[in-house]
């Protein structure tokens, strides 16, 4: 009891001092809560931190409880805005009382990573090879579908151990969305979602789970976010794009894919950019979005988010590359700027 009392007093003292500094130092502080995807959490926290330094009375609190969680919380009204790795389809949008706008913020890509003892070159994968492996039809590393685009690489006669994400994730959505586009067989049997019924393979939780399994299991193949591969120096392969070129994922080749899809985005900003046209485009990438209602009754929050979005699309983009996120192409920024006027 004594202990509890002491703790209580300490805690309330701490909270009090902070309330005091908050209110005394900088006037009334407005807290804006946003919930959603895990993938953009680092860049969002960077942006909101910089923005807070520019506007000390505004705290934008982003928490990565998952894209599905973000969408649900936005609908329930427990947060001010949402964030998601996948665009909302029409059916989901119709469950909202107000119109919801999608604002692409940064780009991400998903890359195939593998553990092949003795192979140091970056492997080249055709879309058919990737779909075949994940469907369980291509089972060995020396299958013609893999060896043919990789002349000179000695591929072992070993079983491929497939590793996929087990948790629902935007990464899985992008990966399966891509496989659905390039393989009718995949589309009919498995389809695309944040989690699917995998025909083969082991499930690892999160990027770290997949990369951990791949690192520890010889002859395995999995997929992870590009950022995760870059930051942790994982080996990853090239993928053949829609123009027939093998492209290694990089920030430039990802932004190129977005630029290639910009024309279609003018009609519907939610369009998927996997397998995008363009000679230099990496085929397995996607936007991540902030979800903003068109009508916001709190004028302070409305003005803040409009100001923030404007800043994010212009000055804010310079922070992306240091964290390995691909920046938006100008064509997409132009489309978003137009959309910004719709918020009232």
């Amino acid at each position, binding site marked *: 009891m*004594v*202990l*509890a009392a002491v*703790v*209580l007093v*300490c*805690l309330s003292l*701490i*909270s009090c001092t*902070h*309330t005091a500094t*908050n209110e005394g130092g900088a006037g009334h502080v407005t*807290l804006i*809560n946003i*919930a959603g995807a*895990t993938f953009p*959490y*680092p860049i969002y*926290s*960077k942006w*909101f*931190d*910089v923005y*807070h330094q520019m506007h000390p009375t505004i*705290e934008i*609190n*982003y*928490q*990565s*409880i998952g894209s599905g*969680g973000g969408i649900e919380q936005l609908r*329930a*009204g*427990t*947060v001010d805005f949402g964030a998601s790795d996948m665009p909302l389809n029409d059916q989901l949008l119709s469950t909202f009382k107000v119109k919801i706008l999608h604002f692409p913020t940064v780009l991400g890509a998903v890359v195939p990573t593998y553990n092949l003892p003795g192979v140091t070159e970056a492997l080249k994968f055709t879309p058919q090879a990737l779909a075949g492996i994940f469907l369980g039809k291509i089972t060995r590393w020396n299958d013609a579908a893999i060896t043919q685009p990789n002349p000179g690489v000695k591929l072992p006669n070993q079983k491929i151990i497939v590793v996929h994400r087990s948790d629902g994730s935007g990464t899985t959505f992008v990966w399966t969305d891509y496989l659905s586009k390039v393989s009718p067989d995949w589309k009919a049997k498995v389809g695309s979602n944040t989690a699917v019924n995998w025909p083969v393979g082991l499930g690892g939780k*999160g*990027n*770290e789970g997949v990369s951990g399994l791949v690192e520890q299991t010889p002859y395995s193949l999995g997929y992870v*976010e590009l*950022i*995760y591969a*870059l*930051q*942790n120096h994982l080996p990853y392969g090239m993928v053949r794009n829609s123009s027939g070129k093998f492209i290694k994922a990089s920030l430039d080749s990802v932004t190129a894919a977005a630029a290639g899809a910009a024309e279609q985005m003018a009609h519907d900003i939610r369009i998927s950019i996997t397998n995008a046209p363009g000679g230099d485009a990496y085929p397995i990438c996607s936007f991540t979005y902030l979800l903003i209602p068109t009508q916001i009754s709190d004028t302070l929050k409305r003005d803040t988010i409009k100001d923030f979005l404007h800043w994010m699309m212009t000055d804010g983009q310079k922070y992306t590359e*240091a*964290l*390995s996120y691909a920046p938006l192409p100008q064509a997409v920024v132009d489309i978003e700027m137009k959309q910004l006027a719709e918020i009232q």
Partner: protein
Amino acid sequence: MRYRSIWRKTVNALMLGTTGLCALVTVSVLILILAYLAVKGWRYLSWSFLTQLPKPVGEAGGGMANAIVGSGKLLLVAAVAGVPVGLMAGIYLAEFGGKTFSFMVRYTTDLLNGVPSIVMGIFIYTIVVLPMGHFSALAGGLALGVMLIPIVVRSTEEFLRAVPGTLLEGALALGASRWRGVATVVIPAAFRGIATGVLLSLARVAGETAPLLFTSFSNRYWSPGWSQPIASLPVMIYTYAISPYKSWRQQAWAAGFVLLALVLLVNIGAHVILSRRHSVQRG
């Protein structure tokens, strides 16, 4: 007769060794884990980690001061909400309970204990967060509070039952009423055990992430008062542990270490107070 005596002595020594081995294996595995965490966490610990707000990736310094205070506040709410319920229900089961209803309460307590933490989070979300319309420290504390009830109930009941019936009978014989006997004789006799249960339950919920995601949410900033989203160490550990950046994953280890150190401090504090007051009871 002699063979039998040798046999009995052998069994005695053998079983002593076996149980000793059990203790050794268990404790050494656990100490190994603790040491691993301490070594990994200690390396990345700094003064700024304890006193500063989180900083974005790539910036030096930055800490989890708000999460440390936040975890404290959440545990406080949890203790205030959950411990009295658990204690009282435990006392009921041990001292006043009938047959059928007690059975039902025990059964439901065990069921409650087996509810996955994420489901508990969803439950508190629907009954507290949705009606309130926003995430809050209170909701998070309540989620943890409900989770610690079963442990407190079960341990309280067991320790009260372990007190020899003769103690209470003695008190009753002296003319005390039953509740007076329980309050002044039985509960003090079982105090050490009950306190162990309470501490164990607090330790158990201190490391929970899943029930907090949808209740206390989290916060990159300070959270004054009780009705705003609030940061907590487990949620920060979770968010940082799954990030692609090494510097954040290191902070996650440091946070894990801090969490343990805090629980350790509370435990030591409690033990000091308990042993001062109840050293007589130890046989």
